[in-house]
């Protein structure tokens, strides 16, 4: 579905999605060159979610994220250069190299924190939403988390609180294991060990408005976010949005498992030799391809226009990479700064 917004905004949304994709590709490349210290997580395959949600937020709204925060930051409007710089722990990053990939933030954009502790950020987000409600602000809080976070008691307690006090909160549960069968005792990475087959049944029983949308459907996420924000501001309380995407093959130690994105695969039906085993990715699961196809089908943009947009984004990302390359690491004498405000 295509969101009912002006064309330029539609193109801007796709542009943001492409920017996230190129940033994550650059991140993986940098990682394999040993430039990303520590364990990192990429947002490939989930770009539509972050962009659709963030595009519906106001500047006074707050955004919280998790270990998988790169895309949320860019979607919120963060400077990709400062984002990638932080991922590589450069001095020019949003946190001067102190946060790294796990704890991405953009304080000036009301993006205070990404917690690396599964579900850790959810209780925090309820407090921010409560403050907004207490002050009668026309603002909301959006918190992104994975479906695995629901297994933590912290998520339960926060959901109960959000429901009891009808908080102006958008709980975006990114279920990136939509295809995985739910059975107990699954050892592999973030395999669902949650007793409720349909996640939203749980949220609904807890008293939240809850719905599931398809993570490759920009419009569906867009509308869900818009309605949720409207509901939150008009006192209708928190909304739980499950965004369903299939597991991206790039895995837990990210590799370019689906290659460097060639936007033409969106329409030329080709699947590159090396990636024949990832047919679903090219045919269905890549949200950038699916949105591109929709845009072309609905004459929002031509193939050429899309290719131009893509080229623009790639050259901007090229500059980003240069900027990060040229950026220094933080000076040791910053190690002890910013422990306390005063």
């Amino acid at each position: 579905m295509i969101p009912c917004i002006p064309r330029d905004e539609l193109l801007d949304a796709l542009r943001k999605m492409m920017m996230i994709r190129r940033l994550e590709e650059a991140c993986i490349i940098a990682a394999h060159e040993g430039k990303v210290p520590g364990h990192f997580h990429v947002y490939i395959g989930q770009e539509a979610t972050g962009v659709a949600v963030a595009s519906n937020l106001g500047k006074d709204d707050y955004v919280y994220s998790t270990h998988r925060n790169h895309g949320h930051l860019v979607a919120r409007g963060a400077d990709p250069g400062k984002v990638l710089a932080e991922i590589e722990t450069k001095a020019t990053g949003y946190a001067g190299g102190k946060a790294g990939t796990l704890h991405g933030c953009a304080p000036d954009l009301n993006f205070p924190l990404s917690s690396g502790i599964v579900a850790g950020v959810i209780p925090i987000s309820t407090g921010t939403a409560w403050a907004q409600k207490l002050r009668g602000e026309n603002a909301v809080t959006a918190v992104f988390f994975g479906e695995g976070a629901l297994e933590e008691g912290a998520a339960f307690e926060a959901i109960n609180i959000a429901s009891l006090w009808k908080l102006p909160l958008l709980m975006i549960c990114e279920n990136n294991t939509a295809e995985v069968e739910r059975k107990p005792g699954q050892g592999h990475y973030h395999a669902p060990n949650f007793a409720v087959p349909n996640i939203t049944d749980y949220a609904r029983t807890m008293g939240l408005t809850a719905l599931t949308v398809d993570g490759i459907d920009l419009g569906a996420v867009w509308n869900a976010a818009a309605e949720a924000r409207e509901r939150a501001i008009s006192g209708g309380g928190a909304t739980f949005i499950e965004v369903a995407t299939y597991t991206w093959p790039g895995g837990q130690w990210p590799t370019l498992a689906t290659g460097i994105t060639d936007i033409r695969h969106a329409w030329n039906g080709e699947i590159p030799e090396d990636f024949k085993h990832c047919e679903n990715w090219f045919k269905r699961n890549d949200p950038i391809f699916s949105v591109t196809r929709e845009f072309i089908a609905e004459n929002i943009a031509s193939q050429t226009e899309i290719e131009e947009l893509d080229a623009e984004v790639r050259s901007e990302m090229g500059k980003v990479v240069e900027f990060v390359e040229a950026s220094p690491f933080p000076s040791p004498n910053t190690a002890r700064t910013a422990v306390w405000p005063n």
Partner: protein
Amino acid sequence: MSNISFGAAKIKALSDLLRADKSVVVIGGAGFGGLEHSADVRPMVEEFRDRVLETPISELGFCGMGIGAAIAGLYPIVTIGTGSFAFEAWPQITNEAPNIHYMSNGGIKVPVIFHAMCGIRISGAAQHSTRPQAMLMQAAGLQIMAPAVSSDVGPLLNQVRESERPTFWIDHSLLFTEKWEEHGPTPPLGKAAIRKAGKDVTLVGYSIDLVRCMKAASELEALGINAEVIDLRTLCPFDKETIMNSVGRTGHLVVADECYPAASVASEVAAIFSDEGFGLLKKPIKRLNFDAVPVPANPGLERELMPGVEEIVKAAKDLVN
């Protein structure tokens, strides 16, 4: 001494803070003072109803809520109840709140204060008697208050507020009704206070143990032993200088600390004298801790494991004679 109890001073200071500033909120309801004193706390809760959030039994959830409210610009006073329940919220108190300012390179402030009634409360038994303070000293970025005298409460609360640092305030179940007031200026945040000057032996305490040290000191005077009493007041920042200066004069040191012995507040005090304070002690320190045994329900057994005024007096006598 004075007429205002520590608990009354606490409630007055909190009320003043709430009255002075609409951004101050309370999360957790009538926890201050514990059940015993909830009646004293109720009026404050009623007066500021609209800014008091009485929460579910969800310490992890509502302590996180306090952090998020602080990030959004409120000043949340989070009351956890019994100190043991801080364990339920441990991930938020020790691994979220203290890190956020640093992880944002100073971009985000988290001015939240957690309060809990800690310590050996007489028959709290194993699970309701925990002293989390030494554990909390292992959470860099967390400020820790542990005052003992009524006249400290108001000034400290305000200093903490101004510091904008995430803070844990250690209350003690038995301190609420204690009446001890100091006249003269309150020390700056992070400085210990000499509650009684003396030349023969230094007694170090904080929270309820400071009260015990003061009582021991007067008993010691009667025995002709002139003890100096130091109130740590805050555990982080931790004021080594005041302790070293005092021991430099007395050469003798007794530290009273309800924590278990290993890696305790008393361990940190003792460690000073193998380090910066090397050579200042004339005799070995006397470390008085609760024995390394879960807290029994029976008061007699509890007392057997618990250093009190009597043990402080005896320790000081052994040192001086």
